[in-house]
């Protein structure tokens, strides 16, 4: 829990005249669960989009280890070891649960179109390994009983967990979870917290966007707070919780306070 694995340096992005992120610095340490919180529109998902290459920063850099990854292609960044889930579920609905995860595992496969066409030994080997790996991941996340169901027909909670499973399929070093507990009831949140911890214990580093404070306080090692594109706090959960600036950002400042 010491090495910095992902490093955002002076990250700024402007959309027209709006500065969505203003010179944000953020370090993710290997093996930790870091929660990214903030009011709506604070720029949390924008951070994810910058890390995964959906947006290019106006200025600043994203370092994975020593490698600057801003400006690289999105599928290349995935291959380098960063995977994400989506706030609004974006599964491949016409594929089965298992196929969704296998599609994730394909990023580690080397066989191309020609190899697949001729069914080379490598293609057979990789297909077999991918299927086995996808099953393992489904078991690990606890949704293997749904393996043969089409993703669009799955219950909501299973879809959310499948998003995580598909991301794990790409064998990431860093897992970015965008509001994984959105729409969950208290029991589902408890189950999810257990899964996230289990994933971390399996050796992944996790960056998490979440609104549910009890979930965050329960599992995160560190909390970063964004407000209007600025980092206003970066500390242990218990410290952040009592930070007056954070409370102000969430609840507003009473008119007579200043």
């Amino acid at each position, binding site marked *: 829990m010491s090495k910095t694995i992902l490093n955002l340096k002076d990250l700024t992005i402007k959309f027209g005249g709006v500065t969505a992120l203003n010179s944000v610095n953020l370090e993710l340490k290997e093996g930790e669960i870091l929660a990214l919180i903030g009011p709506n529109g604070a720029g949390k998902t924008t951070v994810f989009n910058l890390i995964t290459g959906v947006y290019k920063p106006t200025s600043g850099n994203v370092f994975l280890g020593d490698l600057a990854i801003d400006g690289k292609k999105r599928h290349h960044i995935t291959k380098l070891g960063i995977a994400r889930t989506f706030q609004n579920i974006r*599964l491949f609905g016409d594929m089965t649960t*298992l*196929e969704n995860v296998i*599609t*994730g595992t394909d*990023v580690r496969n080397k066989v191309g179109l020609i190899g697949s066409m001729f069914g080379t030994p490598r*293609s057979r080997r990789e297909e077999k390994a991918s299927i086995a790996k996808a099953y393992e991941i489904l078991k690990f996340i606890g949704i293997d009983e749904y393996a043969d169901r089409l993703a669009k027909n799955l219950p909501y909670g299973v879809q959310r967990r499948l998003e995580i499973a598909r991301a794990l399929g790409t064998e990431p070093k860093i897992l970015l979870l965008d509001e994984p507990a959105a729409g969950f009831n208290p029991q589902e949140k408890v189950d999810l917290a257990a899964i996230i911890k289990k994933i971390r214990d399996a050796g992944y580093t996790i960056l998490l966007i979440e609104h549910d404070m009890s979930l965050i306080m329960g599992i995160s090692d560190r909390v970063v707070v964004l407000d209007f594109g600025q980092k206003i706090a970066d500390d242990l959960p218990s410290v952040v919780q009592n930070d007056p600036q954070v409370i102000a950002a969430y609840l507003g400042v009473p008119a007579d306070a200043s």
Partner: protein
Amino acid sequence: MINLRDKGAEFWERSNRPVRVLTVFAIMAVVAALPYAGNTFLQTPVAAFDAVLVYPMGMFILMALGLNVVVGKSGMLDLGYVAFFAVGAYTMAILGTRTGLNTWEIMPIGIAAAMFAGVLLAIPTLRLRGDYLAIVTLGFGEIVRVSALNTEAIGGALGIAGVPFPPGLGFEYQLLDQKYFYWTILVMILLVIWVIRRLTVRRPGRAWESIRQDEDAAELMGVSTYKYKIWAFVFGAAIGGGAGVFYASRSMVIAPDNFTLNTSILILACVVFGGMGNIWGVIVGATILGYLPDRFRFLSDARLLLFGLVLVVFMNLRPEGILPRKKREKAIVKKGSGASL
């Protein structure tokens, strides 16, 4: 409405290996015997039945299978597919009349030429999506036709005549009895089905499926979307080119008029009518749409009206095509046993 696709798939899944093999052979035998069914109710009134089996039916099936990879599997609307058919046909016509090469020797050259045309079209246009891509491909189809029309060196509006028949392989290809052409195209169709099925259950098939369903999510899950979109285009082009080579060699005469936008639209109609993304649906669709206009030729001018009416009624009854893509809760891959092919 009964789901024919699921019924068929259920039958397939319930059967054991001997039953499956027997079914395949029975279907193959019936299909292969079709040229001998010319004197039954299937007879087409004007054109000879065995000729209709080759073109439009066989050709349509072949092209619809190729276009299905682009439109049905990968979700890219291509309105200029006939361009690849034209490139293959012109390659055959030019080389066939001016060099000593025969049809089978020209086939790989024609396919390569069509693939090259596919790459040329794909590289600049595949950054576009949806409607924009459709418009650009439509333009490409017209560019190829108009270029052929205005190039005197390849016959201009008259096209190229005297394209040689394929050399026989222990039999002779004949104009008046086209069953050998029909059987040859059957072999080509089987080959294409075999290749597409292999690709579908493996990595390229998953990549195409994911691109169709959510291109951004696919890219973020590590699918090299640009590369696989080009592959889909080039693969579709190869099939169109191969069909073109064979078409030119059978028809003996080709002209720019054979490669109009109408053909592109008709092939697309076969794909949509039969069931986008499902090769069996596409085959059924192409069979029906290839056959009906010739069957009802006795209605003369009214036949296209009737044809249009059938399309409208059917698409209302079955908006997803006759045999829609898979809806069942069943994986195309089995537990730990590797792909099914």
